[in-house]
């Protein structure tokens, strides 16, 4: 095992991406993720790899599009307003079936919003985000270690499924420092990139495109994409459960909010309240089955988000009326405290140990 070092989330994910074989980083400055481009601008040239500060987020995602089309591992990072600009490119990546890794260190919105942490981009991240009928895999880390661990995973998933993998972090995760171990992990077997544009040398021309004008061709492409997305749902749904088995109140939270929720749950348990946590790690595909199964017992679900309620829709779809669902959220840079969540748990409690 590698040594434990103290790093902020933004730097940890950067180094993890380099270890995962990143060929090129493209990005445009925006707070609260500027540590990434500062780190990359130093480290990528040291590794003989590419760093470009683009003229906009539009350009950054299209640079990723170009590098990815040639079979290289590339990524971009930004924060909410910048991710909005990238949606055009992410839609084209989906249409052209190109792998890409995008990190969103979310800040408060809408509009220019503020630079405080937020989870307000859940809808955008999990519903495709741009135009057309597509999905991106969305990974939601809740610690600096997970931010680092999800980088190689993101690149592998992107290559396996030829789609965009979005890491949905927030301003707290990006900025906070925690001990982290950066290990080079063996890559899983990955499909050959025989579709890549490398020059038509002793093979027919390769074309990367998303325009399908022939009658029925685009419909066929969409069915093919949906088949792929079903495979992703089957194989890649990830979630963590914490003391759910005997819980009367099950919190559903992701990212940094799940960490805060665990503090609240531990305090609640000291008070004799049976509380537990389901933490979706993939926001798309969403752990619908796991939540649905948990709703078969008599219990209340408390969804906590740093937004006015976005993931709560997916929780309701999963539970489908089988159990009560209560929401608590803080938008626009507000962060729920452990005591605040504990108070909510208390309000929902009908019996104690």
């Amino acid at each position, binding site marked *: 095992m590698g040594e434990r070092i103290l790093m902020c989330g933004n730097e940890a994910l950067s180094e993890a991406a380099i270890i995962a074989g990143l*060929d*090129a980083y*493209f990005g445009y400055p925006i707070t609260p993720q500027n540590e990434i481009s500062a780190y990359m601008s130093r480290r990528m040239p040291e590794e003989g790899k*590419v760093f*470009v500060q*683009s*003229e*906009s987020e*539009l*350009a*950054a995602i*299209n*640079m*990723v*599009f*170009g*590098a*990815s*089309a*040639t079979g*290289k591992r*590339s990524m971009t990072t930004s924060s909410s307003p910048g991710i909005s600009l990238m949606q*055009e*490119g992410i839609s*084209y990546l989906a249409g*052209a079936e190109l792998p890409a890794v995008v990190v969103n260190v979310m800040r408060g919105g809408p509009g220019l919003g503020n630079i405080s942490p937020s989870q307000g981009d859940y809808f955008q991240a999990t519903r495709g985000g741009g135009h057309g009928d597509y999905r991106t895999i969305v990974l939601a880390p809740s610690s600096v270690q997970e931010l680092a661990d999800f980088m190689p995973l993101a690149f592998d998933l992107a290559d396996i499924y030829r789609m965009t993998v979005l890491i949905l972090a927030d301003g707290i995760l990006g900025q906070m420092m925690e001990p982290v171990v950066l290990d080079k992990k063996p890559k899983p077997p990955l499909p050959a990139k025989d579709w890549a*544009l*490398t*020059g*038509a*040398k*002793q093979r027919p*021309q*390769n*074309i*990367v*495109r*998303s*325009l399908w004008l022939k009658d029925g061709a685009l419909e066929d492409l969409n069915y093919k994409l949906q088949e792929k997305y079903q495979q992703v749902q089957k194989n890649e749904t990830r979630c963590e459960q914490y003391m759910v088995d005997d819980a009367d109140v099950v919190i559903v939270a992701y990212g940094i909010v799940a960490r805060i929720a665990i503090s609240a749950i531990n305090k609640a348990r000291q008070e004799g309240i049976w509380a537990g946590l389901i933490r979706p790690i993939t926001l798309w595909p969403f752990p619908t089955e796991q939540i649905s199964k948990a709703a078969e017992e008599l219990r209340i679900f408390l969804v906590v988000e740093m937004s006015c309620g976005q993931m709560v829709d997916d929780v309701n779809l999963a539970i489908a009326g089988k159990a009560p669902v209560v929401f608590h959220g803080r938008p626009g840079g507000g962060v729920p405290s452990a005591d605040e969540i504990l108070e909510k748990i208390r309000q929902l409690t009908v019996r104690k140990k």
Partner: protein
Amino acid sequence: MKTVFKRTSSLKDTQTHYCPGCGHGLAHRLLAEAIDELGIHDRTIGIAPVGCAVLAYNYLDVDMIEVAHGRAPAVATGMKRTNPDKIIFSYQGDGDLAAIGTAEIIHAAHRAEQITVIFINNAVFGMTGGQMAPTTLLGQVTATTPQGRQSNGQGFPLQISELLAILPGAIYVERCSVYNPVQIRNAKKAIKHAFELQLNGAKGLSLVEVLSPCPVYWHMSPAKSMEWIEKEMTKVFPLGKLKDIA
């Protein structure tokens, strides 16, 4: 029997979707000839725009990508930076390059990206039905300038090649046309030169603007369109080398 003329191998043996008298066919051929004569077919990657030439990959037989409207220079940047041994070109129209993609072309030139840009200027948006482009001439009637383009409110024709030529990162900028055989030969020479610069590792962007006819949306015959380029378009967009550091 001696062959005096044949299809060049980087051009596919197929019909195009271009309208009668359109200039894209000529430009495609010149481009393909330049690629074949330089022997770079198997290391060239082309970028098709959004516009009439979006299907260029159906006619040009090299590895190609189709990209979002105007973003070709950014895509080219991603490709060239990660593949410095490859020859990267974008093929863009005036809507693509001079309207929606203005930021991308200026900044690719500004960063001195070692790419080649073929810029087809036909003074209208062709694919969407002949609307005003930034390059539309004053007084020119289009689908969105029914009274003819007026500078007051619709702006003057945008001379983007002149704009680009002042950037240190643009190392070669030339405006050509295809309105007669002499101009076609000049355009071929320019396109080949632009590729040669990239091939030789010259440190910057090379761009060839081609004034090209759009008879359908100019509401003229193909022959009249060629005349219009020579008589009217070249007044606003003078032909010649705007810059060549070689």
